[in-house]
């Protein structure tokens, strides 16, 4: 692979960050896409994934720069290295996409997700739910005599773990925001 001068950082301006491709190993990557905040831009990105058969595990989008009209889309996807490279190149050629960053390659990065989780129960289960929430630093944002809604923030794994623990204690509903991610350092 040395001939390819593997560089870190996938951007629309570089096709040379080609890691070993054509392997069958499925990799999970977090990709940050900076786009012009104009009508239809999310449809372009989602249409690319559905049209070409790529996976979306999680997707978040919001405007991050009001004056520059830029939105940031964070996508967690899985695929072989070849597919991941294609995803980035295909994203990069959408006219309204300004920049594509593969945080998994460029990393290390910080990933956070927020979830609110409703747990219905009484007696010991209710006490246990509250105790576990404390350990996970989840906040109670709503309470009735037989239910809680917890708010928890963290890496997706942590939220998975918390939700798993809540299941036998009366978990009835989960809402998750999807992953927001940034590279560490400057």
């Amino acid at each position: 692979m040395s001939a390819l001068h593997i560089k870190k950082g996938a951007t629309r301006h570089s096709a040379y960050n080609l890691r070993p491709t054509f392997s069958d190993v499925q990799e999970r990557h977090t990709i940050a896409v900076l786009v012009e905040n104009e009508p239809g831009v999310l449809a372009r990105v989602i249409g690319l994934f559905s049209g070409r058969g790529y996976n979306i595990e999680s997707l978040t989008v919001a405007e991050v720069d009001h004056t520059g009209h830029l939105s940031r889309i964070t996508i967690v996807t899985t695929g072989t290295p070849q597919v991941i490279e294609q995803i980035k190149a295909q994203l990069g050629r959408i006219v309204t996409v300004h920049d594509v960053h593969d945080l998994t390659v460029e990393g290390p990065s910080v990933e956070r997700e927020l979830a609110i989780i409703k747990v219905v129960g009484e007696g010991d289960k209710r006490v246990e739910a509250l105790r576990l929430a404390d350990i996970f630093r989840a906040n109670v944002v709503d309470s009735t005599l037989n239910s809680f809604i917890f708010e928890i923030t963290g890496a997706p794994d942590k939220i998975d773990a918390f939700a798993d623990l809540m299941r036998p204690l009366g978990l009835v509903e989960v809402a998750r925001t999807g992953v927001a991610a940034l590279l560490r350092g400057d």
Partner: protein
Amino acid sequence: MTREMTGAKMVVQALKDQGVDTVFGYPGGAVLPIYDEIFLQNDIRHILVRHEQGAVHAAEGYARSTGKPGVALVTSGPGATNAVTGLTDALLDSIPIVVLTGQVPTFMIGSDAFQEADTVGITRPCTKHNWLVKDTDSLAETMHEAFHVATSGRPGPVLIDIPKDVQFASGEYTSPKPSTSHYQPVMKGDLEEITELVAAMETAKKPVFYTGGGVINSGPAASQLLRELVDSTGFPITSTLMGLGAYPASGENWLGMLGMHGLYEANLAMHDCDLMINIGARFDDRITGRIDAFSPNSKKAHIDIDPSSINKVIRVDIPIVGDVAHVLEDILKVWKARGRKTDAAAVSKWQAQISDWRKVNCLAYTNSEKTIKPQYALQRLEELTKNHDRYITTEVGQHQMWAAQYLGFEDPNRWMTSGGLGTMGYGTPASIGVQMAHPDALVINVAGEASWLMNMQEMGTAVQYRLPVKQFILNNERLGMVRQWQELLHGERYSHSWSEALPDFVKLAEAFGAKGILCSDPADLDDAIMEMINYDGPVIFDCLVEKHENCFPMIPSGKAHNEMLLGEAETQGVIDSKGSVLV
């Protein structure tokens, strides 16, 4: 400079400022204000097609034969949906076209209004980019940006959807200025990679250039530089269907087209080479055949302006992202600076090997004195038209492959065919677009009767505008390529691959006000072709050919380049069940 004007006037003004001289279109309720403005001026010629698909293909033909963007103007709803096939065709073949669609007024969007369709939604996956313009003030800028996007980087189709109230309202018109948008594709290739390629060229023993439509899209300079590079290195060169003409067919290093119906010597050179230099092609499945057996022992370089083309299908060793002309210029510069080295002894041995393959004479066929063989018809067409200022369009199928095999192209922009999408019905409207751009040239649409019927209504356009397009129909009363596959893959069960009710093409021509010529005897063919050429007006040439001729050579689905079939004798049981799933 800004000026106040209506949106409709802005559209026409922007087209003028972008240097557009011809628009192919069809009016309707949602574009009437624009048609009103077209009525009031004389700078832009409007060609009334008979179907919106025809408008888009005509714009494609115009674009491919001139290198300038083609423009089509259609109404909302069905006008826009009829344009979808043309847009997709242009997307797959990277043809710069700008399609303007009318839309219901902004305040009615979403109400399922009469002739309303979600045009930007429908065309999002089949355009390079599209816009819905919601206020007149941003219309001029969007128009200029659309031309920039369509023609920059890898060219492609763009669409602007313009609601009727935006056409009526007034706003500020801004003249075109150099694009300031962030969309500025990289033109220059990485010098480090270019140097690596040159080093590989210096030591290659069995090199081959594999060129594609990207050379033609890059402009005439790219073809010139390619010719210089090929002639000074002496490396053999083959091309995809889309790239024919970039290097002259009469050139001494020319191998002919490669791929599924490519030439024996071209495909074997690709399979056995040790250095493959892909210039502006994209390793399409018609080219590669079986991927894991594709050119197993070669180092591969790939020059492409679109980073997503690189490593999409075939893993390459030397990726170069950039415009073909810019990169070729740098390759030549570096190669000359390093002393113009090649391994001449090895390359001439390689050329000798290729000459041996050439002796197989893969395009040989059994001629007949009774019936016209389609190959013979094209050989005669080539012979009798090659010295003319000639442009060829085609439909899709066997005739298209035979045309690519038996016609020779000396220059770029002379060959218009639907490669990526394989759109039957492309050729007739495309020939009209080409003839509009080149009024004095000989424009021939090589067609099959089935494809030709798909957009035959455009004969009306040809007659109305006195466009002397020649419709050269190889009529075998079959869907020839479908029939061939059914013979080879589906146990000779010819399911719905023939037509029992074909029109009388001579009468049809007369009904349109064109000339009809029927030819069924090989002895009459030359005279009939001359009659077609010499007639000053549109002609439908009904050439009745052998009905069961198959197109060879052929690389069957699921096979490698070195497993190609050369003729009928080799076709028994060649495609296994795995191959038959492939198209």
